[in-house]
């Protein structure tokens, strides 16, 4: 399935409302050098990547390969040492605001209910909260949080809190979603369910999605393209197109082609000493 068809009826056959497609992201010769106490660390070395509108890109790599740094640079939260990022043709020169962002920890606000934690996205933007309340409830219900709207974050499980964080990142319908190891702190079963739910949300909305992970099969299961990164210095080792049908049901992720993709990436890491036997 090509990204362009995402706003059309999905494979499941349900007619979907047309949504603004995701934005294209252009990363050109981005390098990042950190200097700390006269010690220079090359965190990223010449990253070039063009992400198509509505594409789901997964970045997979070991800790320390600079993938979180890359995410921060794209989101405009960190200025690159050299190179530039353009989103929808506009140069990113400060925090880019037309996006949703999810981190490894849900970073919810302890003093707000689940519903208000979703709405803080609108609140911080100075938007009209009342206009988004129903939407927030509907979106929470979609990820299985109906009835939890008035609970406090600490009353929910880690998985539920992370679902809330994802809803918070999507409530304002951004054309770009940045996720930094969003399932990293969850148990394997919750992780699997979250992956399925995330794909559904993406199929419905079609926002360009940047998904950072160190789970190889998770990356293959979700992405249109997997970016394989290796550390010291952090750079793109390979880019693998994942040509598997969507939605990626059980039959797809247990297929021979799926495991071949995973093996391919594993071998790539073995060649670079990231995985050793």
């Amino acid at each position, binding site marked *: 399935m090509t990204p362009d068809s995402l706003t059309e009826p999905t494979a499941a056959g349900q007619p979907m409302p047309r949504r603004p497609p995701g934005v294209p992201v252009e990363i050109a010769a981005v390098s990042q050098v950190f200097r700390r106490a006269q010690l220079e660390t090359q965190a990223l070395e010449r990253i070039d990547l063009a992400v198509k509108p509505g594409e789901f890109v997964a970045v997979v790599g070991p800790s320390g390969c600079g993938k979180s740094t890359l995410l*921060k640079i794209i989101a405009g*939260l960190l200025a690159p040492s050299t190179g530039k990022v353009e989103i929808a043709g506009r140069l990113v020169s400060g925090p880019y*605001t037309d996006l949703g*962002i999810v981190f490894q920890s849900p970073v919810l*606000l302890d003093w707000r209910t689940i519903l208000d934690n979703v709405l803080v996205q609108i609140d911080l933007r100075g938007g009209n909260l009342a206009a988004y309340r129903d939407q927030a409830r509907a979106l929470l219900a979609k990820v299985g949080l109906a009835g939890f709207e008035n609970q406090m974050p600490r009353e929910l499980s880690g998985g539920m809190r992370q679902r809330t964080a994802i809803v918070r990142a999507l409530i304002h319908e951004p054309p770009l979603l940045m996720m930094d190891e969003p399932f990293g702190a969850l148990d394997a079963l919750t992780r699997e369910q979250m992956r399925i739910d995330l794909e559904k949300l993406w199929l419905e909305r079609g926002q360009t999605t940047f998904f950072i992970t160190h789970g190889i099969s998770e990356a293959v299961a979700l992405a249109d393209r997997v970016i394989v990164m290796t550390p010291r210095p952090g750079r793109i080792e390979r880019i693998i197109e994942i040509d598997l049908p969507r939605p990626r049901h059980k039959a797809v992720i247990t297929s021979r082609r799926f495991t071949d993709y995973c093996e391919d990436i594993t071998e790539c890491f073995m060649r670079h000493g990231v995985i050793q036997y």
Partner: protein
Amino acid sequence: MPGPWRWLRQRGGMIAMFIALFLLWEFAVKLFGIKEYLLPPPSKIWSEFLKRQSTVMTGAWTTTIEIIGGYLLAVAVSIPLAMAIAYSRFVENSVYPIIVFLQIIPKIAIAPLFIIWFGFGLFPKLLIVFLLCFFPIVVSSVAGFKSVDPDVMDFARSTGASPARMFFKIRLPQALPEIFTGLKIGAALSATAAVVAEFVASDRGLGYLLQQYNGQLETPMVFAIIVLLSLIGLSIYYLVELIERLVIPWHVSQRPTEMTGL
């Protein structure tokens, strides 16, 4: 279960223990014939207190004003200062070391200086209460304002929120639990500070009365004043804790045990 009953069930043991201790005290004094000027029995303390109630209560009022006035002054100065320290590198580098240095000076030792500078009135007492309460509030508040998770700030920046909006929606609520920790430490110190200030030089207040009665070996009155001072200190502490419960219920309710909750 209705509220009062639950309260009684939770605190019943503590109350019974208090009563038992007082009874033990009362009878031990009588049984062993301990002299009154060494350790008066509780009944004697109470009866002496009733005799001089009006003098003592006037003193208590003076001391309470000093405590609350000095404490409020400390709150009013500490929190804005903590904000400045937390958000301005310049203020942090220039002012904070001076504050830490001042904290090392034993403040009780400079109390006599205040008498020389400001005389015997209310102001030097306010100043000493202020000085003792000030530091814990500043330190906790600075820690509170600085304790924001960097990911939370990255999220907030990604919304394009103005600095003022970020402050009131994120930084301030996030800092409140630690600010209240400082406010409670300050509250607990405030009564001590007022009494010390009165010890140094005063012609009124509970600290003054305490010294007078002590000098005349009127031990029952010394005890009465100690109890009264404790009650004032406790009331102020609980008042701050009550405000904490109202302001940050989301935080208070997640504390595993409530050591002081009455």
